[in-house]
């Protein structure tokens, strides 16, 4: 402490002189200035004249909580988002975005998620799962959702929203766009092999990640013209599953990744948090996962803004050329 105080002035002077460098460097960047200008112009276009922007949030279990970090960055930057679509954990976070829950509140909710949030994971229940082939119930997840967004129906949300599930009896993809939000989101995040399928609307529903990992098409159904997708895929090279559940989830993730190759191409911009090494049950890593989402958002923001600005150029030109 003593020495720190004695030697602080010189060290601070050195650090201060070096700290000033990045600020000056930023000012001379033509790309940054034009991006800021065009994005400001874009945001001033009246709704209906600017492109409809869709935010798509992928599946990914605990990894999917990185979407909260991504949304934090988009919200801070005032990124316009008109419609939202999500699958599995992407549906959970997407419903919050659609409801207009601030990212700071989402971080609180995300930070409180434990393995028990979605169901009863007591030893007795897990033994039942293993010995009796009796799947767990995900009713608790619906209650958690209701505590955050209430008894909202899709048309009561602040932004149009869609989430994706799969009917395990037919293999059909089911896109929910109306009715109560909470049961639809629960069905979308209903991990097969762990949770009982949700009986809803005469269907037998499980996690939509099996059929639509990055639901770009659902956002298009809602009218999105330009789509930003946040993708939280697993990296299988990190994970060596050693038990039944881990193996099952890995197979689902691999299937999701294969499916998502085409969907990635259909999105106009991608943000990919580096959470590939996080396994589906690692709730203790949630703060780190959300932080990785913010990092990815910060890395990808400029690219997304540029892509949207270029996409919107015909609309901007229309406005400019019509001005007196």
């Amino acid at each position: 402490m003593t020495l720190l105080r004695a030697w602080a002035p010189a060290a601070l002077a050195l650090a201060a002189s070096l700290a000033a460098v990045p600020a000056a460097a930023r000012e001379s960047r033509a790309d940054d200035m034009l991006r800021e200008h065009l994005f400001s112009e874009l945001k001033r276009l009246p709704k209906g004249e600017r492109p409809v922007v869709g935010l798509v949030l992928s599946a990914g279990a605990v990894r999917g909580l990185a979407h909260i970090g991504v949304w934090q960055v988009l919200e801070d930057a005032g990124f316009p988002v008109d419609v939202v679509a999500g699958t599995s954990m992407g549906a959970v976070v997407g419903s919050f975005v659609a409801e207009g829950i601030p990212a700071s509140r989402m971080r609180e909710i995300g930070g409180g998620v434990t393995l028990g949030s979605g169901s009863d994971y007591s030893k007795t229940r897990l033994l039942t799962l293993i010995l009796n082939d009796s799947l767990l119930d995900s009713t608790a997840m619906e209650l958690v959702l209701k505590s955050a967004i209430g008894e909202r129906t899709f048309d009561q949300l602040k932004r149009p929203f869609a989430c994706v599930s799969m009917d395990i009896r037919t293999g059909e993809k089911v896109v929910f766009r109306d009715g109560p939000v909470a049961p639809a989101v629960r069905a979308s995040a209903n991990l097969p092999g762990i949770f009982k399928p949700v009986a809803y609307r005469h269907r037998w529903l499980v996690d939509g990640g099996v059929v639509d990992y990055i639901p770009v098409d659902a956002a298009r159904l809602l009218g999105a013209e330009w789509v930003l997708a946040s993708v939280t895929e697993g990296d299988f090279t990190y994970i060596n599953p050693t038990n039944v559940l881990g193996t099952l989830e890995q197979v689902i993730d691999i299937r999701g990744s294969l499916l998502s190759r085409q969907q990635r191409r259909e999105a106009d911009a991608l943000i990919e948090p580096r959470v590939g090494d996080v396994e589906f049950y690692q709730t203790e890593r949630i703060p780190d996962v959300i932080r990785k989402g913010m990092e990815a958002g910060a890395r990808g923001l400029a690219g997304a803004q540029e892509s949207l600005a270029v996409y919107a150029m015909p609309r901007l030109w229309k406005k400019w050329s019509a001005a007196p």
Partner: protein
Amino acid sequence: MVRRSLAPLALAALAACASRGTLVDPLKSERALFESGRFAEAAAALTPERLRSLPKRSRGDGHALIAHCLEAVGRSDDALAAYQLAEALYPKNLEALTGLGWLLHRQGLDDRARPLFERAVHIHPNNATANLGLAEIQRAQGDLASAQVGYESALADASWSKNPAVLRDYAELLASRQKPQQAAEAIGRALVLDPSAGTLLSAARIERRRGGIEAAYRDVGYALSGDPTRDDIALQRALWLLEDGRLAEAEADAEAVLARSDDALARWVRGSARARRGDLAGARADLASAASQRREHPFVARAALALLEELHAPAN
């Protein structure tokens, strides 16, 4: 709660420790050399024998001082090795932790710098240098709320509270967080300390964000008159003029820049203004020139190409 109630006692103990220690500073002569800019001499004085002769609690600082000196003379690789040695030998030494953290941060290695700052803040929550380093990284990594807390902690320290660059960064962060009033107050403090063109430009940006259009033009005008060679300031004003439909003035600012160099952004501004005025041939020439500079300014080139395509569309 326990931690909070113990804090005054801990602070009192630390203050007593500090006042006792300043009387006897084993590294006083080497620090004097460092502070007078004689970095090589300071480093040379810190021989292995000299380091061994220091009281144990000062040895970590001695190693960190060597690293500081090496960094100050531009020997970054040697400084890195010296910081790493200091940090390995004295893992709780704040100078070693923050010095290594800043070096890595400046080299863009934020993922490696961050844990060092976090460790320093864990050891000493009010350490201004560590809080500032952490805040800069958090800001770059999109965590603006945490960054704000870090800046505020750093600015609570007397040394940093008078640093205009830090105040300016803090003000811009507040503006990004949609806190215009606080941002204006912070940039006002920075302007008092450093009324340079760069600070005036920041002030103008903040004014514009909070809706003070005329005040922003006034500040950017002051900035430009303070340093008329700053093309970025002229172009910032030109972009705002374009946004506000003041095409002739935007074009004039762009032409002033183009008289000095074939700047891609100036070409964009003039081309865009010409297009809006109906001078499509002139606009195309400017935009084609901007589009050709894709290596230096990839986005300006891309945007120019997109607008050029619109101008070539059949309706035009």
